[in-house]
Each structure stands twice: as structure tokens, then as C-alpha cells.
């Protein structure tokens, strides 16, 4: 993961990072923005493990990852928008729409091949995003209002469809592929192969990049940082592989890493690459940082804003596929209007700024896991459902406060 989550070309050497989290993590280097969040995650894990001994059981950890997948993907969807200082409040229902379309068309009644149904679902979500984007750009409407209205529209459409397609019976998941997104596992052997491949690829990328900088006689970060990073990654990978590979079934043995994990890591890797290594990503950051500067640099700002909405819709669509897969189907009673707020929470808790210009795809990955840990942990420790909302709300408020303080300290520096 860490190989691809290293986008900020700015993050090498001793550049004075201005975010609060940056300064806290300054000792560790490069991906410092995420370090305090990781520490918070570890604290949470220890807390819940102390309160409930099953928290770190193989069964629960797997379950937790599957729960996190929805938050992570919707969080990544929001990152595309938050980077530009926009937001999309309709993504929760867009995800529901995607899952429902996939479930409906792979149902025996329609019998589409899974890839065609997935494609239709994702195309729909991307188109919805494009629509919001065009409204925001052309009519100069604030995205929060456009997508709030959009949220109601998509919700209504979805409930209507669910009530009519199967006469109110919802849309059960009948496709194996759709079901396996969250219920299928790699074999233990492939779990190891995957973990080792990630470590080797990360090491190669980090070392090749270091070599290239050295060769060009540019300042390089101390080598121990790479070692620390790779060591942390390896330990994490091995622990997870051991957990996933231990039997968590009660009647028949269930073992191996859920398919969802490599899929998510793959998406994070691709998105991180786009953000950190391509012009497209650079322009996203530039527009979020200073729209006027981006415009004067010849960047077609409005077109990029529409792209952001489209990518948000697309990513939420992917999240919807995983979401419906976990639920086993989608009906008008399984809808979840708070999903989008968890998505924003995942992005912001990870360290994405609400003010635009700061964020990485690794943030919602960690943020989504934190949301899932809280969610899952509170259930295990038998905290009542209303209190769950309170806790998540407090955590989100805390994350936004940190974001705001970081921003203020940055503007004070000038």
C-alpha cells in the first residue's frame, strides 16, 4: 500500500509540513499526514480489544474489513470532490442505486451477465455525477445544495424501482460474482502470494525511486525511512495474512483473505497513482489549492470539476456493488440514508481537508477502517444504536476541528 500512497511529491526530505498532523509525524517522514491517524486507530483497537475479547478474532477482523469496504470506497469517492472543495451528498443513494441495478439485472428475471450489469450500474452512477457536475459548473450552484436535492431525487427513484421491479420484494443478490465481492475469499496460498507481492512491489517502487533521485543528485530522504515504511508494511501484511488464514468458520472451515481486500488495495493504488503521478491529479490539487491560479495556468477548471463529480459517482458505484454484496440484496427497508455521512467521515477522519487541495486516497482507506472499528466495536461492547451515532458524530467533529486548525496554522505562516 505504502508504495502507491506516497503521492505528495512534496513529501520527501525535510520540507516543513504545515498540517498539524504533519508536524506530529515529522519524525517519521514522508507519509506523515497519516501517522497520527494510524496511532488513533491502534488506540481504538486496543480499547475495543480490552473491552471485548472477540474484537481481534479472525472472524471479527474479517467482518470488520468487509464492513469497512463500503466506507472506504464511498470515502474515496468523496475525496475526488473534497480535493476541489466540493462535496456530493447524494453518493450514499447513488451507491444504493448501483447495487440495486447490479442486483436487479443479474437476477434470473433479467439474467444479464454480471459484467454487463456492473457496467450498467457504474455507467449510471458516472452519468449522475456528470449531471451534478454540469449543474454546479454551468448554473454556478453550490454543490452541497445540488447534491442534497440530488440525494432526494436518487432516493425517490431507487425506492420507486425497488417497489416496482419485484413487486416490493427488493432486489436479492443472485449472481455469484456479485455475492463473492464480499463473501468470497482467496485461498490461503494466494493470500500469502498477494501479501508478498504487495511488499515486493512496494519495496521495488520505493527503492527505484530513491535510486533515480540519487542518480539525479537530488536531495533524498534518509534511507531508514524506506526501511521503516517497508518494515511496517511487512508486519501489517503478515499479521493480516495470519489472521485471514486462520479458520473462522464454525461448521465448515472458512479461511483466506476476502476478495474485497486486494480489490480495494488495487483501487487505492490506481487512484493514488493518478493523483500523484499524472497531470490530471496535479490539476485536481491545483484547482483545490487555488482555482484562479489553475485557471490562469490554462487548466480547464470547469471540465475538471465535472470529472471530479463523475469519478465520485463512479467510485460510489463501485462501493454500491460491495455494499449490496454484503447485504445480500437491496430492498426499500435496507436503505441507509446515513451512509454518505460515514463516507465524508471516513475521508475527513483520514486527513482530507474540507476546504479543498489536501487529501490522498490512503486517507479514506484508514478513515474507513476507523469508522468500521468504531461501528463494529460499539456493537461488540453493546453500546446502544443511538449512542453509535453520537460517537461517530463526535469523531467526525473532532476530525473537522483538526482540519480547520491545520488550515489556520498554515495561513498564519504566511
Amino acid at each position, binding site marked *: 500500500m505504502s508504495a502507491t500512497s506516497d503521492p505528495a511529491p512534496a513529501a520527501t526530505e525535510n520540507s516543513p509540513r504545515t498540517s498539524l498532523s504533519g508536524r506530529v509525524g515529522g519524525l517519521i517522514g514522508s507519509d506523515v499526514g497519516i501517522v497520527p491517524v494510524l496511532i488513533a486507530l491502534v488506540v481504538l483497537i486496543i480499547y475495543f480489544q480490552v473491552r471485548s475479547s472477540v474484537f481481534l478474532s479472525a472472524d471479527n477482523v474479517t467482518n470488520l474489513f468487509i464492513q469497512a469496504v463500503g466506507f472506504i470506497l464511498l470515502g474515496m469517492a468523496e475525496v475526488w470532490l473534497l480535493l476541489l472543495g466540493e462535496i456530493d451528498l447524494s453518493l450514499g443513494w447513488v451507491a444504493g442505486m448501483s447495487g440495486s441495478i447490479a442486483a436487479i439485472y443479474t437476477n434470473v428475471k433479467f439474467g444479464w451477465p454480471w459484467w454487463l450489469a456492473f457496467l450498467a450500474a457504474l455507467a449510471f452512477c458516472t452519468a449522475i455525477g456528470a449531471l451534478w457536475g454540469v449543474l454546479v459548473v454551468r448554473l454556478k450552484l453550490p454543490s452541497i445544495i445540488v447534491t442534497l436535492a440530488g440525494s432526494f431525487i436518487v432516493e425517490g427513484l431507487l425506492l420507486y424501482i425497488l417497489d416496482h421491479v419485484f413487486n416490493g420484494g427488493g432486489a436479492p443478490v443472485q449472481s455469484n460474482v456479485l455475492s463473492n465481492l464480499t463473501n468470497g475469499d482467496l485461498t490461503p496460498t494466494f493470500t500469502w502470494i498477494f501479501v508478498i507481492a504487495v511488499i515486493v512491489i512496494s519495496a521495488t517502487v520505493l527503492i527505484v525511486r530513491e535510486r533515480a533521485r540519487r542518480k539525479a543528485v537530488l536531495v533524498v530522504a534518509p534511507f531508514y525511512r524506506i526501511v521503516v515504511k517497508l518494515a511496517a508494511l511487512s508486519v501489517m501484511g503478515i499479521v493480516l495474512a495470519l489472521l485471514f488464514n486462520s479458520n473462522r468458520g464454525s461448521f465448515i472451515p472458512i479461511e483466506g483473505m476476502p476478495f474485497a481486500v486486494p480489490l480495494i488495495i488495487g483501487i487505492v493504488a490506481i487512484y493514488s497513482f493518478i493523483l500523484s503521478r499524472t497531470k490530471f491529479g496535479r490539476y485536481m490539487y491545483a484547482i483545490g489549492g487555488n482555482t484562479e*491560479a*489553475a485557471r490562469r495556468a490554462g487548466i480547464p477548471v470547469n471540465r475538471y470539476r465535472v470529472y471530479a463529480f463523475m469519478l465520485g459517482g463512479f467510485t460510489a458505484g463501485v462501493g454500491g456493488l460491495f455494499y449490496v454484496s454484503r447485504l445480500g440484496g437491496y430492498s426499500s427497508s435496507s436503505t441507509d440514508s446515513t451512509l454518505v455521512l460515514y463516507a465524508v467521515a471516513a475521508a475527513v477522519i483520514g486527513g482530507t481537508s474540507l476546504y479543498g*487541495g489536501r487529501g490522498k486516497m490512503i486517507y479514506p482507506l484508514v478513515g474507513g477502517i476507523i469508522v468500521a472499528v468504531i461501528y463494529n466495536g460499539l456493537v461488540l461492547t453493546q453500546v446502544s444504536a443511538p449512542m453509535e451515532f453520537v460517537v461517530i458524530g463526535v469523531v467526525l467533529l473532532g476530525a473537522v476541528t483538526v482540519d480547520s486548525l491545520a488550515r489556520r496554522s498554515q495561513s498564519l505562516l504566511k
Partner: protein
Amino acid sequence: MSESVTSNSAHAEVVGGSDVGGDGSMLLSLRGITKSFGAVQALRHVDLDVPAGQVTALIGDNGAGKSTLIKAIAGIWEPTSGEKFWMGKKMQTHTPKDAANLGIATVYQDLALCDNLDIVANMYLGYEATKHEVLDEIAMEKTAQQTLKDLSVSTVQSVRQIVGSLSGGQRQAIAVARAVMRDAKLVILDEPTAALGVTQTAQVLDLMTTLASRGIGVLVISHNLNDVFEVADRLAVMYLGTLVSSGPKSNYTMSSAVELITTGTTSRAA
């Protein structure tokens, strides 16, 4: 006797030298530039010459038309009438991009930098170097470093610093370096020292001298006559939309400049 003391006159310098082509020895020549916004005439028959390798200061009171004039040069808007000549040839620029392609770089007061990106990313914004569609960070970093070195900008520790963490003078330097890196032949600076402290002002003035010594034409708007007299080779004074006087710095004294700025004429010859 100086031509600069007569108000509203055609330029003595270009008499005989220019017909349709402007003054071929000049980097930029404006002839009879007029700009109206409805009933308001912001610019009236402005003639201005900007030579290469020198610092030309454009001075004048608020509302004198300085910003309107540089925006006409930078292609933000077209003059209502009049002609612009670039190295003796008629300029056909209608957009900022056209002007930039000719080598005219404008650094506005707000600098247009992205605080969340590092120096390299800002210097290359919109013109990133890529290798197989992937950003070529190493090539960009090397060039950025070299450019700053050439401009004797030594105060930034690392080109990988986030621009939001830089001081006002450093930010100004980055904005200028960004222009220079794109092979600008004329750099227009709008109030570059307005918000700066003493040391930083000195750095920016040094930077302007460095630019001029490299053969680049510098056109600087400033309110600060101390700065102007310290760094400029030539002065051009605007008053209520007209260019009332221009010429080498030696033609002016501080008091004659002040008088031109405030009244449009001067009683004393330098």
C-alpha cells in the same frame, strides 16, 4: 532638454524612428492605445516603449490606468483602438495564452500560486514535464532548481517546500521564476513589493535587476518611488488614463516624478 516634461506629447524618442512598425529596437511598443469601458475612457492614446534588458517602471496614482494598460498588454482585453508591436511586428494577441506564447509573462499582485503544492509543482503548473504520461518529477525538480539558482534566489531551502510555507518575497520570486522558466522575454510585475518588508523588498528588487541583466524586459508597476528610483532604468508616468511622460530615469527627480503623478505636468526639468 527632456521630452518628458511635456504632457500628452508623442514620444520624442520615437520621432523619426517609427512609422507603422513602432520602434524595431524596442521589445514592446504601444501606439495610440485607447480603452473605453462604456462612457469611461480608461486609456487615452497611450504610446509606450519597453526595451529589452531594462527595467521600465510604470508609475501613477490610483485610477491612472496602469493596471488597465498592463492588462491590454497581457491580452486580458483588447484595446478599443491603437496598435501593439512586439519586436517591431504587429502583435496579434487576443488572449492571455497568445501573449504568453509570445513571451509576455505577467505576475499579478495575487501571484496566482497554489499554496498546497510545492515550488516545483507551482513553477510547472500547466506545463508539466511528462514521460509516458507520468510526471517527470526529477527533470522538473532539476530545472526548477537551476532556474532559481540562475535568478540568484538563494533563500528557499528546498524546491520541494510547500509554497504556503514561504514568505512574501519568496513567493514573489517563485512567481517570477515561473515566468522566466517559460522563456519570457518581457516580465510584467504588478506591485511586486507592495506587501513586503524591507529585506524581502530588497530581494525582489535584486531579482528585477537580475532579470534585466539577462536581457529580459521588465515592466513594473509600483507605488513606491524609492523602489522605482532604486531599480528602474526608465520611467513612464500615467495620469488619468494618459501617459504623460516617459524616458530614462536620469530625466526625473523624485519631486518631478511626484508632480507628474499628482498633476500630470511638471514645472521643473530634471
